[in-house]
């Protein structure tokens, strides 16, 4: 980023923090900032740190800027605990929030443009940038919801959802096992495995392949989650019906992608295998399957998201009294929206871990693909 612009940005952020000392904090009559010595010290520290970041520039500015952001964010969060400010915050408070936002944004941009030498440092950076970005988003959500006093029925603050998450771990654990371990994972393995096997068979017999590819395309385009009521009718309320929906939903994307991938190897490579006298099995293991890996991983990634949706939708049509989808619909009916968000966080964490594992496996096995070589 342009160092001039970085400097200017940090100066504006420092000025924003100083504005908070002058402007009113709330539309109601509350003690001003100057009546709270610790918060004044924190605000001044944040302003000084931003100014120092503008002064030094470069990579040292990131550390100073992050410290300033922490001071500013802590001040606003402490201020929100005052009932006179939460729900009726005014210009001074929002100036501070904007300054924190600006400072954090500059830190993210500057951090992302760093090019560290070491492998470990690069990996740490790749983790730190999205984490900082996410922390800023959550901070803004918290501050906006509490500053404007959004009713918790519409949108709870992330801290309320986090408290609910921590206090109902046993229920969340049950729901996780019911929906994710039983429904999603079993269905995913069955669906993807069957899709890959059928694709391998179809590649062997080209007549079957030519018939299955258009049909597979057709079926993978269908809104197959619609069969959820039928599966619930056939397999009952418990996890087998969810696993069946997930298996059906994941089967066709895998079939289509694997079929496309298995024919991705070039004529030259196939001729080379023939000149080595490789039989069908050897060609499959050494050429076709490795060449198909990017396609297969594409399907695995698509399926990771489809599977979770399939399982949760199937739970709308009937469940035993546990499971993520069941809990979301009942708690939403009772207007316990913080519990709904805790369940959503659970599903998000489980799904991210799942996707992350698939992506790691992809990196380890398809490092040769052009999109990873840059």
């Amino acid at each position, binding site marked *: 980023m342009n160092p001039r612009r970085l400097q200017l940005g940090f100066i504006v952020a420092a000025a924003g923090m100083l504005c908070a000392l002058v402007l009113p904090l709330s539309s109601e009559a509350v003690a001003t900032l100057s009546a709270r010595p610790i918060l004044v010290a924190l605000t001044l520290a944040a302003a000084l740190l931003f100014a120092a970041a503008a002064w030094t520039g470069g990579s040292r500015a990131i550390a100073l800027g992050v410290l300033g952001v922490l001071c500013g964010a802590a001040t606003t969060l402490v201020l929100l605990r005052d009932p006179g400010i939460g729900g009726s915050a005014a210009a001074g408070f929002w100036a501070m929030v904007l300054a924190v936002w600006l400072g954090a944004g500059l830190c*993210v941009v500057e*951090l*992302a*443009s760093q090019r560290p030498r070491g492998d470990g440092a690069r990996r740490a*950076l*790749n983790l730190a*940038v*999205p984490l*900082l*970005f*996410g922390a800023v*988003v959550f901070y803004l959500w918290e501050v906006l919801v509490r500053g404007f006093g959004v009713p918790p029925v*519409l949108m709870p603050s992330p801290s309320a959802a986090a408290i609910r998450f921590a206090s109902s771990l046993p229920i969340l654990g049950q729901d996780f096992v019911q929906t994710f371990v039983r429904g999603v994972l079993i269905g995913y393995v069955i669906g993807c495995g069957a899709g890959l096997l059928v694709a391998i068979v179809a590649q062997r*017999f080209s*007549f*079957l392949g*030519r*018939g*299955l590819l*258009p*049909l597979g*395309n*057709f079926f*993978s*385009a*269908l*809104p197959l*989650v*619609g*069969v959820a*009521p*039928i599966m619930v*009718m*056939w397999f009952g309320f418990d996890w087998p019906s969810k696993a069946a929906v997930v298996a059906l939903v994941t089967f066709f994307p895998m079939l289509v992608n694997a079929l496309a991938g298995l024919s991705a190897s070039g004529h030259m490579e196939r001729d080379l295998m023939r000149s080595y006298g490789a039989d069908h099995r050897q060609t499959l293991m050494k050429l076709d399957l490795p060449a198909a890996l990017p396609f297969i991983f594409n399907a695995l*990634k*698509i399926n990771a*998201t489809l599977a*979770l*949706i399939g399982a*949760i*939708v199937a739970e*709308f*049509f009937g469940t035993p009294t546990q499971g*993520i*989808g069941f809990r*979301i*619909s009942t708690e939403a009916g009772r207007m316990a*929206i913080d519990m*709904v968000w805790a*369940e959503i966080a659970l*599903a*998000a964490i*489980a*799904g*991210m871990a*799942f*996707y992350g594992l698939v992506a790691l496996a992809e990196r380890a096995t398809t490092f040769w693909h*052009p*999109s990873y070589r*840059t």
Partner: protein
Amino acid sequence: MTSSALALPGAGTLRRRPLVERYAPIVTIVLALIAIWYIAAALMNLSLVRGGFEREEAPYTVSELIAGTMTAERPLLPAPHQVIAAFVDSVFGYAPTAPRSLVYHSIVTLSATLLGFALGALLGTGLALMIVHSRALEKSLLPWIICSQMVPILALAPIFIVVLGAVGLQGLLPKSIISAYLCFFPITIGMVKGFTAPDPMQLDLMRTWSATPRQVLAKLRWPAAVPYLFASLKVAITISLIGAIVAELPTGAEAGIGARLLAGSYYGQTIQIWAALLASAILASGLIGLVDLTERGVARQMGARP
């Protein structure tokens, strides 16, 4: 497999008739699937029909039993001809605006799908452009875009529609927003892959010509991304349809294919569920066909040889 292959003319005649060569495998497999469906319907409905006969204590023969499985009113698995009869009846039997007509429900779902698809395609391409051009966004936003797909937004649909209703948005838009949320993701991922598809060599060549980022985008990245764009559009339009249908499920919508599915599930009308599924299948294949036609047109414009 072998028996059906024998019924076809030999390979030599096939080669001379490309239409036969192309469609023979598809037709064979479709016929096999229909046969399997009939057998499965007979087997699955058998105990149901037998139970019915035994309750009436009427004597029955095997042929009556099998005929019964094909005409049951609320079968576990309806036979294909029952589904098609119900489908034809609900498409042509009523005026297109009647609430019992599948055409009416399909149009409701289709409009939400198309609006959501348009929103999602714009959002997805825009995000991909931003990600490709800004290292900060690539590092900070891309992981969160992937995470966003792990949030089961469908579960949020009821709350979502309440909130949007409070703001004054009703009807089509909430469903479309759910579709757009679901379908922007494959487009973003596909387009990021497409925009980064050019080899480092090609990018270096552009640099030696001192091309500006905008020129690199217009002359190298866009053309390289077009195949990826259409591949992801095909995925996205089906996901958009799924989004529209599923958004109708938990919200208690009165019209739309999702509402039809839900009503069928409540009242045990299996044939109605299957007819609605058939309608959604036809809708999905029509939409994909449309994207496919556009792709061919664009490819011809760009100088691809058939």
